[in-house]
């Protein structure tokens, strides 16, 4: 077995924490955004749609830089949140924010595709049975799009596990505080001859994320079986 340095272990733990928090915290927002994009019609919609795609289009470094400008200690949002005890700058929370932002377009797209595949006739039926729009969404739409939500969540998680450019630009690389696995990998890549270390770290990262992928596949299949209902 390869011995892992305490800092590598810290990076692994932090990466898992950052990716989980990023995924869980952004999921409700992603679901709401996907719903708005697929089911509502209002003039500003195109702007929201464009905004959602932004982190996909911009180089990650730019996204990180924009986060720094907005959510840094001197950024407008950062200054607003500081009195509330919420700081992102140079904190693991900032890494989670960066990961969430970078994964957001992937989540929204997957969930939106799923929402658009739901048969509106079922939602109509629920309405005639007395369920209001929110109730219909929670009891009919949400369970039916569960595979899409899972797909979105796993893409968000995987992306968060691999996110580097925006994270290091926004919250730097403070070992034990903001050094995620990708930062550690990048660091190692900068040293001639440290390929061995890179391979080990990559293998860990891949193993963790693939594990999550399989968990989601298994869950999806369970849900599909329940919905499909075949014996």
């Amino acid at each position, binding site marked *: 077995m390869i011995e892992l340095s305490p800092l590598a272990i810290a990076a692994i733990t932090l990466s898992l924490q950052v990716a989980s928090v990023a995924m869980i915290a952004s999921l409700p927002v992603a679901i709401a955004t996907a719903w708005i994009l697929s089911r509502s019609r209002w003039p500003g919609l195109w702007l929201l749609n464009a905004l959602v795609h932004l982190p996909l289009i911009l180089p990650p470094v730019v996204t990180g830089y924009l986060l720094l400008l907005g959510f840094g200690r001197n950024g407008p949002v950062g200054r607003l949140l500081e009195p509330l005890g919420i700081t992102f700058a140079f904190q693991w929370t900032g890494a989670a924010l960066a990961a969430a932002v970078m994964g957001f377009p992937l989540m929204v797209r997957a969930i939106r595709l799923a929402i658009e595949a739901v048969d509106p006739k079922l939602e109509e039926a629920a309405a*005639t049975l007395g369920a*209001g729009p929110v109730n*219909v969404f929670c009891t009919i739409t949400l369970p039916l799009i569960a595979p899409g939500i899972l797909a979105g969540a796993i893409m968000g998680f995987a992306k968060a596990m691999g996110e580097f450019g925006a994270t290091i630009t926004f919250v730097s690389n403070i070992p034990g505080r903001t050094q995620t696995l990708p930062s550690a990998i990048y660091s190692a890549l900068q040293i001639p001859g440290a390929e061995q270390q890179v391979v080990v770290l990559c293998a860990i990262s891949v193993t963790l994320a693939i594990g999550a992928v399989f968990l989601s596949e298994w869950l999806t299949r369970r849900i599909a079986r329940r919905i499909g209902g075949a014996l």
Partner: protein
Amino acid sequence: MIDIRLHHPLSGFDLDVSLQAGPGITALYGPSGSGKTTLVNAVAGLLRPRAGRISAGSDLLFDAATGVDQPPHRRNIGYVFQEPRLFPHLNVRANLNYGAKRAHKAAAGPAFDDVVDMLGIAPLLARPTGALSGGERARVSIGRALLSKPRLLLMDEPLAALDPARRAEILPFLERLRDAGLPVIYVSHALPEVTRLADTIALIDTGKLVAAGPAHHILSDPTLAQRLGGAQAGAVLRVTHGGVDDDGLTRLHLGGQSLFLPQSSPDMGHDLRIRIQASDVILSRNRPEGLSALNILTATVTQVQPGDAGRVFVQLTLPQGQILLARITARSAAILQLRSGTPCHAIVKAVAMDRADLSRS
């Protein structure tokens, strides 16, 4: 009292209907593609008509003029869709309970166990809906709407996927609901169902109302008989229950005359009605003897209306004024020299009438 007035363009023609429905069961009868589902969708609030006004009692559901449009979940209208629309992620029990959970606590409605028994779906309750046969789905969908305790029930060909035995179990249940005060709009292609259930019948064709009125009027109108599907046309007679004979036949009084029904029916109250299919009636100038047919009514011909292909509809008036319809060949009408005013005897086989033909009015 449901008051429907609406105008809505469809591909090919416009739906343009003005209809008062209820109390009781209003049957909507018309050929495929005539606009029945569209009409019912508008009542449920799933389709916003281009123009018109829909109200249920004093409650305004929709008014294009003032912009009133109650959303479907506020209308409290049960809807059995033409296709079952079961929720695929819920099992049968959860599907059935979906509406029940959201119904007003105070609202009246049938009990869960009664509905499940009546529909014969007790063994299916724990099943996912994906593992149901076509008829099983249809039954669950009926149960789901019934259990939502609606103030009005819309049923779009609810029994089309079911066998006669199943239908015969469901129809009396619907009648009991109707008797308990639930108005029903019932879309159907099956005339026996319509004549059995309907208090009011609305005939619709290419989006327009062809005729609408009390069931016994519409059914005994020989000019509409052809449109109603000649083979199944028939009048409805109002009768009273006269007890059950020893051999199990039920005696029905019709003024001074009697009819026998080949089944012991419990006394369901005084005012009953019985449907007599026009093609089940044989006419005779003399009183016939020694026949297996038990029911022979004296009547007078009031109208002879040519039907299709060598057949005529003969409208007969019974002594107490009720109207009976007979469908015979033109040759027989000629041989028997039937014309308005001719006295004659109408022979109806007891077996031709079913308990299914008898209902409370």
